[in-house]
């Protein structure tokens, strides 16, 4: 297979997943498209250095995440809000609440979660990565990944349940 065709197939295979990851991290269509484009650009320049072809997907997600962190450093748009340390009870999120909110509202809620917690949570939801793979993509220990996902998930579910709470008159 020619290098061009190989590259095109790779783009077709992963651009959607990468875009969704980028969009969930940034909340911006333009930034997500830029991150996806930049990721494949880097692949075209350096991808041949990857020894194990089975790691392509992880490599692409790692690269997009690194580029996102660079973008954050440039834009200084980190959210200051931190995740609460513990949560004993998971909030109930009624089915109709999830049906009522659209993807954009969900993405807005995700963006309210600190980036360190958001990235593992997004990978947890949108990809079928194992926890070990998520840890590899984000270059953090497995235990940290799991605790961040758990805490971020509780946080997200709380926000979702709040949208269902009756509004004060």
């Amino acid at each position, binding site marked *: 297979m020619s290098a061009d065709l190989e590259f095109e197939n790779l783009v077709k295979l992963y651009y959607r997943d990468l875009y969704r990851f980028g969009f969930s991290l940034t909340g911006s269509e333009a930034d997500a498209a830029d991150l996806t*484009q930049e990721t*494949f650009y880097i692949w075209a320049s350096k991808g041949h250095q990857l020894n194990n072809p089975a790691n392509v997907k992880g490599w692409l997600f790692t690269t997009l995440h690194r580029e996102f962190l660079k973008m954050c450093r440039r834009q200084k748009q980190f959210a200051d809000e931190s995740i609460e340390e513990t949560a004993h009870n998971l909030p109930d999120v009624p089915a109709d609440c*999830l049906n009522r909110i*659209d993807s954009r509202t969900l993405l807005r809620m995700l963006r309210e979660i600190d980036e360190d917690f958001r990235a593992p949570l997004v990978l947890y*939801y*949108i990809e079928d990565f194992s*926890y070990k793979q998520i840890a590899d993509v984000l270059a953090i220990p497995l235990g940290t990944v799991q605790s961040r*996902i758990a805490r971020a998930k509780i946080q997200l579910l709380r926000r979702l349940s709040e949208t269902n709470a009756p509004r004060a008159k």
Partner: protein
Amino acid sequence: MNTREAKEVLLLYRGPVDDADPQFREALTHAQRDPELAEWLQEQTRCYGAIRAKLRGVEPPIDLPQKIIRTRPILFRRNWNEILKLAAAIIVSASITALGFKLSERKSHPIAQGQEILVRGEVLDMTCYIAYNLSGQEHASCARDCIRSGLPVGIKAENGKVYLLTGKAGKPVNAELADYAAKVVTIKGKESIRDGFAQLQVEEIRKF
């Protein structure tokens, strides 16, 4: 494991994708015995599925893949065997030319002595320039290394004419020119042509 501990473990459970993960095994077994926990787990996995579906419902712009493919950088992968062969060919060619030049000098041939001219232009690493049309600032570092290592050096005049640069009596001028790689200089020297191949015997180098 009690129900509370099982819940803490199963908080991360996504469904079939995590079935092979041993960390969930005991908690899942517990859920099979505890109807309340089983119901809670069912609700959690349903909630996971709903959020996942919403996030995966995000569609990228329709023209994104074309944009990615269009802007793909084309990598230049060097074939060092080819470069070395070409360098050898250029060196042999330059040596023959220099030898011819020397022989012609002995015969006081007017063409061999050449006219003294001034050429202003970019210093080239001839190997990469001829083989791959590489020149300019982007290639400066490679050009400097190639010239320093003894590969043929040339100059591209502002009118586009390229000269192979030689020293007096066919001696190389690489050491003098390596630091000027990809830079614009003015060189005073004697022009000669052999088999249509222009050469300049360097007498003086002036940085532009």
